[in-house]
Structures are given as structure tokens and as C-alpha cells.
């Protein structure tokens, strides 16, 4: 069970990041409470992956700060056990089998051998990988790799879980397994920061969403609120809202405070 601090799970203040003359992220502020599933949306090139890297401490911002469960993201020793991260490209070693990979992760995360074995078996069963657990990862399909990487990111029971396109390229059954896992983790108190293009996934699991466009947060709130503020008609979906807010770059941020 994740530990709960008084401070927000993710608190990002005035984040700015530039690559040369191009501003990738401009004055991004996020305040995400514990146990929330936060859907992070944005078109390609909006700055979502940059945001993820800043929030995990894997990249330093040019300006602003990030705190995760009250800990500065730049304090790598303190943050290590609190966050799990599944990037878009699964960080796996092709030369290992899934079981070896997960045992290696458990070893680096100081999970006791017996606990690790128990958790790994449980997750492998849950994600229907048990029969292939001893095959080398280079022989895995994209879905199998994604599921292994997902297990790897949650094996140490993190307080905050960052997921970058976790269901991309998965078959419906695997996608559903991951979706259900996200909900289960959130119910257990884990904060999930979910970046994806698949809007039905966000609609199904997110408590709150933020829409990033051109490096700026242009909409934030519950899915219903964002739909309402995007001034789509009553039958409008989240997709309509997304298209509406990401086609008007001059529009100021629409938030609950408006």
C-alpha cells in the first residue's frame, strides 16, 4: 500500500523547458492529489513526453520545480522508491527472459527474494505471461513486452505511477488488463499519471484530465468539466472536446477557476 503524505502526489510549479530556441513546455503547473488517475492529453509534439521526464526527475527543467509526495524530483535517492515509470518504449533487456528481467528489477529495488518471487508470479499470472516467462524478451510480441514493462514499473508498489501510452499497440484483452490494473492501483491509493492518445481509455479511468497544447496546459478538470468548457454540444464526446481545445491556440487555459 502506497504511503500517503500531506502534500500532493505531484506538485509541479511553473515548469519551463526549451530545446535551443524552441520552447517545449511553458509555465506548466500541476497539482494532483493522491489516488487520482490523471489523464494527460495532447496532440503529437505537444510536450507530453518532456513533461513526463521532468515529473520523474529524469530531466531537469530550465525553470520551476517538481515535488513528488513532498520530495524534490531532483533528489534521486529519495524519489527512487516512490515512482514507477513506463515510457512509450519499454525499457527492457532483450537478452533476459521476463522472469530474469523482473527478478533483476526486484534485486535493484531491494525487494526481498521471497516477496519478489511471490509478486512476480502473481503479476505474470494476472497478465497471462506465466507460460512465456522463461522465454527471452527478444522473442516477445509488442504486447508481451508492454505487459512485462508494466509489471516492472509497479513491482515495487510505487506511490506515483507514470504511464506513457501504456495501451498503445495492445490487443483488446491486454489493453483491458492494463486498464483494470490502473483502476485497481488508483483504488489502492496509487496516483496514476496517464499520458495517452486513446481517449476512450482516459474516459474510462481518469478522474481528472489535463490537455497540453503547444507546451501549455489549455484545459484541466474532470472529463465532464472539460467537455462542458470546450463548449461542445450535449452529445459531444471527449474527442470533440479535445479537438476543440487543441485547435484554438490563442484560447487561455480553461480551468475550474474560470
Amino acid at each position: 500500500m502506497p504511503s500517503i503524505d500531506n502534500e500532493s502526489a505531484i506538485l509541479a510549479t511553473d515548469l519551463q523547458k526549451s530545446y535551443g530556441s524552441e520552447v517545449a513546455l511553458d509555465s506548466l503547473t500541476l497539482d494532483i492529489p493522491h489516488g487520482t488517475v490523471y489523464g494527460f492529453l495532447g496532440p503529437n509534439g505537444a510536450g507530453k513526453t518532456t513533461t513526463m521526464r521532468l515529473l520523474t526527475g529524469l530531466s531537469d527543467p530550465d525553470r520551476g520545480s517538481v515535488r513528488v509526495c513532498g520530495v524534490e524530483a531532483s533528489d534521486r535517492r529519495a524519489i527512487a522508491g516512490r515512482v514507477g515509470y513506463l515510457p512509450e518504449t519499454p525499457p527492457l533487456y532483450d537478452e533476459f527472459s521476463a522472469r530474469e528481467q523482473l527478478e533483476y528489477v526486484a534485486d535493484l529495488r531491494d525487494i526481498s527474494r521471497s516477496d519478489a518471487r511471490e509478486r512476480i508470479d502473481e503479476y505474470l499470472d494476472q497478465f497471462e505471461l506465466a507460460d512465456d516467462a522463461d522465454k527471452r524478451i527478444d522473442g516477445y510480441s509488442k504486447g508481451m513486452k508492454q505487459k512485462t514493462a508494466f509489471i516492472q514499473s509497479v513491482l515495487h508498489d510505487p506511490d506515483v505511477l507514470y504511464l506513457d501510452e501504456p495501451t498503445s499497440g495492445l490487443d483488446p484483452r491486454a489493453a483491458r488488463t492494463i486498464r483494470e490494473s490502473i483502476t485497481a492501483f488508483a483504488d489502492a491509493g496509487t496516483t496514476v499519471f496517464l499520458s495517452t492518445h486513446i481517449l476512450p481509455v482516459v474516459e474510462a479511468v481518469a478522474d481528472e484530465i489535463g490537455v497540453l497544447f503547444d507546451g501549455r496546459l489549455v484545459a484541466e478538470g474532470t472529463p465532464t468539466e472539460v467537455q462542458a468548457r470546450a463548449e461542445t454540444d450535449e452529445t459531444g464526446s471527449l474527442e470533440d472536446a479535445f479537438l476543440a481545445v487543441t485547435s484554438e491556440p490563442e484560447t487561455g487555459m480553461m480551468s475550474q477557476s474560470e
Partner: protein
Amino acid sequence: MSLRQDVRYGLRIGRAEFIRSLRRYLGNPRRVFGLLITALVFGGALLFALPAAYVLGQTARSVTAIPFFAPAVTLATLGLFSTSVFRTLERLGHIDASEFVLLAVHPRAVVIGLITAEMGRLSLWFGIPVGAVVITFAFGLGAPLLVASGGVVALPLICCVAVWGHAAGIAVLRLLRQAPRLRRLLKPVGIFAMVGLVVASQLAGQLLVESDISARPLFSTFAFDPLVEYVGLTFVGTPVSQPISLAAVGVLAALIALIPIGLAVSTKQVSTLWFTDPVDENTSTQVRRSSGGFSVPRPFAWTKAGRIAWGILVRARRDPAELSHLLIVVFFIAPFGTLLVEFSADAIGPLIAGAGVVLAPYLSGATFGLNPLGDERPQLPLLLLIEAPAATLVRGRLLAGIAIGAPVALVGSLVSIGFGMTVPQASVTAAVGATMCLTAAMFAVGIGSAYPIYEERKFWGTETVVPSTLVMMVFLFVVGGGTVLGLFVTWFALTGNIVLTPVFNVFFGTYLLLTVGVSYGSYRYALRRHRRYTLA
């Protein structure tokens, strides 16, 4: 978290990285075969080295009497440091699956892990032969404990050199990241430096053999006495031991002190490198543009194969790293550089023309022909389903290669006119060179299609798909040998030194038949492979 904990994590990472390397080496039968050949070639040298080491051990009366001991110690230490720097530039500057590792442990643990794994890999490559020589020497000396004392003395030295080499390598990587233009410049400079080094090594060897210069005083200038005295501690307790000097103890103390300092410097450097995004124009979000569409100049525009060739040339121009496999020729051509120095001025013209003719067929075939299917791997689903026949695709590749190679033969012949070649001689040489370009390119696409390589690998610091080493070797020997033979016949014909005897006619006829027949057969095979190719 303490240093002890980081060391523990580092050793786990090191073990995992080492196992991964081992599985990569052994997981590919082609690599295993290559390793076996390497072991066979270099293992043969041990047959001479081991008896020599034994005799050396038996005859050694003091450490200073061991031939080249002092410069060998100093140069080996410098060599290790350079290896550490270069390996950091090439491989140890990052860790695979960094998103997971860097979120699990501190960068210091990662540094320890990377260096540990590298030391394991180096031990795997060099540990057995070096160990065998040392053990044999120790037995010759009658002091088997020398092996253990040698290990104890070497460990702090190797650790210190490895850690500081890593720190220096990371510093260079940071500098290159800050100055992308310098990085782009460094690649061609590095290539020229290496060619220069190969040529210089040939000249130096020749100079030492031919002149009266003694190697011993030359090498003794490389000796760093305190370091030599420290390594001399290895012999404590043996018949050749020398008194322990203050300098030796001082070096030991310095090495032990420098290891944690080097580790701290390295950790600080990698933290900045890994957690600061690149400033490099190429990896930033800036997009390179190409306006005007796919406009093909004449004469390429005249045929579909020509337009395909132009596409291949444009891609190569925009990503020259794809052609890094061409550099392998340096090892074969550079030694001949000394010939240019040796030859008198009246032969320099034919030499330049000849060099052009030798290089031109190599470029025509090797540039785009040695892995035609592998180079197109991502595009094959498109290429195999388009209307253009396989012959057009293959001819496009031939043309692209010839477009690179033929001008080299032409320029070589033109330049040679300025060095005494007559215009008819230069013209004939150029024509022969151009013909050989065609035969080499046709031969290349055939052997390249026979053994396609799809997976990317690190080659000369670039992650790219390179042709099989076996295919490159076969191409080099067949085309190189054939070209040189043809060149000699051409030259003798031009200077009127050929007598048309029946034996010559048979030999020359066979040569022509083989050149044309093998090339055409290879080309036909490439067509067949392209037509029947199915995706795995």
C-alpha cells in the same frame, strides 16, 4: 544510501550487463564463428609467446633486466586509460533501459556497474592470454605466487585508470554535447587521424628495421619511474625482488586515494550528462527541411533505375553514417601508403592512376551493394509490392554505386597526367577503371543479397545496419585481387611489355571470363533473390 549500498547495486548492474554481453556474443552463430576465427588467429601467437615467457622467467636476474619492462608498464597503463576513455565515448556513456535503471538506483551505482561490466568484458577478451603469459613467466621464474601478487598490484592500478578514464570520457561527451559542430568535425578528423596512424605505424616499423636506431633508448623515454617501481612490487618475495621504495608506496597510496575521487568526479559528470537534455541541433525538436520535392537531375532523371539511384544517393548524403562500413578499407589500403613515399617521382603518376582504379571498383560495389536487402529492410513491404520490377531496383543500386566509384577512377587518371602519364595512357586506365566499377558493383549486389543483415549494430561509434564482415572480406579480396591483376595487365599493355604467348592468352582469357562471368552470375542471382524474396 551509503557507498556500500551503491557498490552493491553497482555489482548487480555490472553482473547483469556482463551477462547481457555474453548472451549477445554467444546468441548469434555468426558472431561465435567470428570469435572462433579471432581466437584461432590470435591464439596461434601464444604458441610463440608462452615458450618465450617461460625462457624470460628462467633467465631473469632482476626486474630491470627484463627487456622493455619499464616502457611496457608505462605504455600499458596509458593504453588502458585510452581504452577506458574510448570505450566510454563509444559505449559507457549511457546505460540501456536508462528510464528504469536511473529511477531505481543512484547514478553512482550505475557508474560502478558500467565500469565493472566493462572490466569483466576486457577480462574475457584479454584475461586468458595475459593470464597464460603471466603464469608461464611465473613458473619460469620459479615463483608461482607472482600470479597472486601481480593481481593484488594490478587491481588498484586498473580500478584507478578505469574510473579516471570513464570520468575523462564523460567530460569529452559533455564537451561534444555542448559543441555539436565540434562533434561533427571530430568524425572526419578521427578517420584521417586513424589513416595517418596506420600509415605512420608502417613507416615507423620500416624506419626501425632499416636505420641504425636502437629501439631500447627510444622506448625508455616512455618510462615513468614511480609507476614502474610500483609495478615492481609484484616481484616481492621472488628471486628478482627489489627493495620496496618510497615512490612505490606513494603510488599505491595515490592510487587508493584517487579511486573514490575519480568515482565522485565521474558520478557528478554523468548526473549532468544524463539528466540534462541534449543541446545538439540534430536531436532537438528542430526539424530539418527539404524543399522542392523529389527533383532528380539529369542523367539520373532519364530512367527509373536512375531515379532510384538518385534516391539512394540523396539518402546517403543526408545520413553519411550509413556508409561507415566503407572505412574497413583503411586497414587494407593504408599500408600501401608507404609505397607512395618509396617510389621515385617518375612512377608517381601510374601510382595515382592505379590507386584511383583500385579504389573506384571498391566504392562502386561496397558503398550500396553489399547489403541491398538489409539496407531496404524497413521499406521492403513497399518495394516488393510496387510495379517496378526487381531488375530496376537492383540496377538503381548498381548505378548509385557506380556514380560514387567511377568519378574516382576518372579523377585519378586525370591527376596522373600531371605526373607524367600520357593522355592515351590515362584514358585507357580510366576506361579500365570504369569497366571494373561495373563488374564490382554487379558482383557486390549478388554476394550482398546472399547474406543480408537486418539488425543494427555499433560500428565505428555509429548505430547502423552494416553488411556482414564475411561478405565485406570476400568482396575486398575478390575485387581487390581482380582489380590489381587487371591493372598490371593494363599497365604492361600500355608500356608495350606484353608478349602475346599462348600461355598468356589462356590466362588472360580465363581472367576475363571469370571477371565477366562471376559478376554477371552474381547480378543474376541478386535479381532472383529480389524477385523471390519473402518477408520473414
